């Protein structure tokens, strides 16, 4: 009978983290930032139907990068959680923080207990009200959760994009300005991205109860050209 090999827990975690990071780095990145009319979400995504950015609830949006089937399952779970909570209590009781915590718990559990970690990073954004501030919750593949007030970047190349974005970002920019900065940061110095390569959505007032709105290719092209 052969003895199982001993592998140090540090090594196990390191291997899993590396595995997840590699998986995430294979996909494209996503930027979310606050602008003067709400929150802008921009992802590099040539597909028009397999979304990285989606609506969760009246004032909450979801962003996912990495393996599509894994983050999409989490997106649907988020919609279910939010709709059930809003139905059982009130629409005002649905908030991004509790949902982000659930994602963090789930990702953390999978990372420690399952064979394979989830190769995803999740963003939960809530458009603020007079009572609640606008918040961006970034959940990592191992369950770490961070909250940002102004902008956040998800994806394999996040550090480079974050640096590029931070150097040009201005608080209080309008939609066109914020979009240009985000697209330039996503593209990097040696590429240009145009409307068909992008998935863009906003959380903004002016659309009634549901603040999530997808920005069409024509509108994106117009904003980038302006």
């Amino acid at each position, binding site marked *: 009978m052969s003895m199982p090999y001993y592998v140090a827990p540090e090594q196990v975690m390191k291997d899993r983290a590396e595995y997840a990071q590699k998986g995430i780095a294979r996909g494209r990145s996503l930027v979310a930032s606050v602008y003067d009319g709400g929150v802008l979400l921009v992802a590099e995504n040539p597909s028009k*139907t397999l*979304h990285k950015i*989606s*609506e*969760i609830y009246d004032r909450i949006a979801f962003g996912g990068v990495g393996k599509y089937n894994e983050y999409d*399952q*989490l997106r*649907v*779970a*988020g*919609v*279910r*959680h939010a*709709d*059930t*909570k*809003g*139905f*059982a209590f009130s629409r005002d009781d649905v908030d991004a923080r509790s949902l982000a915590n*659930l*994602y963090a*718990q*789930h990702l953390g559990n999978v990372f420690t207990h399952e064979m394979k970690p989830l190769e995803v990073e999740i963003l939960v954004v809530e458009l603020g009200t007079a009572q609640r501030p606008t918040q961006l919750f970034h959940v990592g593949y191992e369950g770490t959760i961070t909250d940002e007030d102004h902008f956040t970047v998800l994806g394999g190349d996040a550090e480079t994009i974050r640096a590029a974005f931070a150097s040009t970002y201005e608080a209080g920019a309008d939609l066109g300005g914020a979009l240009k900065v985000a697209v330039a940061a996503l593209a990097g110095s040696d590429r240009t991205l145009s409307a068909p390569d992008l998935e863009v959505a906003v959380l903004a007032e002016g659309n009634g109860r*549901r603040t999530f709105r997808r920005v069409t290719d024509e509108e994106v092209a117009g904003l980038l050209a302006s």
Partner: protein
Amino acid sequence: MMALPLFSPQSDPGPDFTALLSNEGLLPLSGDASGVQQAHGNTVLALRFDGGVVMAGDRRATAGNSIEHRAMEKVFAADRHSAVAIAGSAGMAVEMVRLFQVQLEHYEKVEGVALSLSGKANQLAQMVRSHLPMAMQGFVVVPLFCGFDVERGVGRIFTYDPAGGHYEETDFQTTGSGGRDARTTIKLGYRENQSREDAIELAVLALYEAADADSATGGPDLVRGIFPIVATVTADGYARVDEAEVATRFEAAIARRRELGGYGGGELR
């Protein structure tokens, strides 16, 4: 409720919010309620015009002979392009509408596209059908559903029976205790491809006549300034007709009747 609702592919409820709720034990249903004094809501109607549908309903809810509410809302936006109005057991009906609204939005968010208008009508039929055990105990809920079919570019109206049957109407329909009077009024005044304004006026007259003949239907409450709810659904979506406009139309109808000794004085020859 406090855990992330994840399912295995075999047990996944898909975009069905009702199935999800029953999974969580939150589905409002069942129990013996016979003999409970309940509030009833009364006349609602829908009629087509060129470019959409008008839906309207009175504001009264009764329990037996007593007026329980004077400002109840019976016309709701189901989603952006559809509306639902309710007559029958008020508490049950409002809860059913709430569930229906969440179901439509839930489907749209999970699937990424909205249900077709026929799909929405069918979904509501399933809710009415699953409500049948309660209907047998007297908690009858009969909704009226209408919407703008964005694929076909027309307004469409659907009616229901308590067993969950649903039928598409061509031009107009009413339901509730004053429904017959309202229906006759619309039948006499209806014109194909009428304008939005004419349809709103006809809806107002129909509700006036229903309230005139049916004690359970509330007319315009001039003392408290409460008027029936009138809404339209067009390509631009659901919109409530401004209360001031509804009030003006009711005042005109009343002035005409005052002048003519209580009659409408129409031209039906």
